[in-house]
């Protein structure tokens, strides 16, 4: 019932979008090679699907993305746990993070090549950078916001430092951390294209860049659509995970 309704919404909105696109193309205001028509794009999507390169590109990108994202998540949570717990230390690290965070990964390219070479590594590093800050900051924030009452309970039951961190602080902070993980997913996926600019020879980002360099805008649009859809699917997966956690944690909001 709900899925039928949702599919209906998706279908209608996508149709309207494609319709507008088709109309814009049909006016002939834009050179077809500069604004490919929906049919052209569908054709190149089919092409990509049929010759199997698409699957390959998606696999490669996903692998890079997951490596970057997961290592960033682990690093962000572990570091965030330490820094969130030792607020004095965080006072020193905070300014550095605040200055580094607003810098585009693109600006780091020369140094990334210098330190990490070309190919997979820079893509992973850029995704890592893009994912790391939100996870780190949300972990620090989550730990700071742990309800004092939980800490008192732990003290009362005479838990040791390790039990306190693993049994109380980490799970108590987890809803905020999970939210950070979600945000990080979105913001780092956007950097896949940038990441695959430095010497990658495959991947969805490479596909787009290569298509751009070859002036194949139909392929660029096809790549855009695949990137959008993959991002959407990733987002749906993590939303589901987050919902599960929230409902288990008894978080009531986000219900409707």
């Amino acid at each position: 019932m709900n899925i039928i309704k949702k599919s209906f919404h998706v279908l209608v909105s996508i149709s309207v979008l494609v319709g507008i696109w088709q109309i814009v193309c049909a006016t002939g205001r834009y050179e077809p090679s500069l604004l490919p028509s929906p049919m052209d794009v569908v054709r190149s999507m089919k092409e990509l699907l049929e010759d199997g390169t698409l699957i390959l590109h998606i696999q490669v990108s996903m692998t890079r993305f997951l490596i970057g994202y997961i290592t960033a998540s682990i690093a962000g949570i572990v570091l965030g746990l330490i820094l969130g717990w030792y607020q004095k230390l965080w006072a020193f690290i905070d300014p550095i993070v605040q200055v580094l965070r607003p810098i585009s990964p693109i600006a780091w390219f020369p140094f990334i090549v210098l330190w990490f070479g070309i190919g997979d590594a820079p893509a992973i590093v850029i995704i890592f950078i893009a994912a790391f800050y939100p996870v780190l900051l949300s972990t620090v924030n989550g730990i700071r916001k742990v309800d004092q009452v939980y800490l008192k309970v732990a003290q009362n039951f005479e838990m040791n430092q390790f039990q306190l961190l693993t049994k109380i602080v980490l799970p108590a902070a987890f809803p905020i951390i999970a939210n950070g993980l979600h945000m990080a997913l979105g913001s780092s996926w956007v950097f896949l294209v940038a990441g695959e600019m430095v010497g990658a020879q495959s991947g969805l980002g490479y596909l787009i860049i290569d298509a751009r360099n070859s002036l194949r805008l139909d392929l660029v649009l096809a790549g855009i659509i695949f990137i959008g859809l993959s991002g959407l699917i990733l987002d749906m997966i993590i939303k589901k995970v987050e919902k599960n956690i929230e409902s288990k944690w008894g978080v009531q909001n986000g219900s409707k």
Partner: protein
Amino acid sequence: MFKMDQNNESFITIEGVTKNYPRNDKTQSLALDKVDLSIKKGEFICLLGPSGCGKTTLLNLIGGFSKPTTGKILIDGELVDKPSVDRITIFQNYGLLPWRSVIKNVELGLEAKKISKEERKTIAEEYLSLVGLTDFSKHHPSELSGGMQQRVAIARALAADPDILLMDEPFGALDAMTRMGIQDEIQRIWSEKKKTIIFVTHDIEEAVFLADRIVIMTPYPGKVKSILKVPLARKRDRTSIDFLKIRDKVFSEFELKAPDCTEYYL
């Protein structure tokens, strides 16, 4: 039996306890002013008073969560200087861990002790059945009503087998009728388990229903105004003449101050 004989000795001794909180404007706020109190083993004490009279402050001091500015608190002759599993505090918002099931919450206090997994489970189940929540052991706290959550908190505290239970307005968030039910329950458990209970409330009737002695406190600065014995047999009848007489007495204790207090309360 020996313990029974000791019953007249002071178990918890509070001597000249004062607590100052620093204020932003660098003045000090006197949250507790020279409190003296002596509590016997197994007593049910209610701290009663309006908001800001230092009930929570006093309870935190006894719990060991903070230290008095002057004076000292002794339990069984030992100075209180940090929290201990021998005195468990039950907080108003229950302090249950929302990510743990009910039974896992009850087991929490046992995890810090060196007790095997199975034994933990057995103990936890025992106390869950004591508070009548055996059927809900796999639920998460968020799936329970407020009254049920408070009962889980009680089970968790009891499972750690403390000598003293400290309860800070434990039923404040419950509706009036649910409250009566759980008041019955805590008094039944107290009768059964013989714990010393210090119970914070600002509900006069609740204090009269539960306490052996009511410690009446007043604010600005927070101090003990008087201590009232409640010499009624258990289980008390909320509509009996004797009950209402004591209730009246407490009312008049407060109404003496009513004209200038009202402004503070609201």
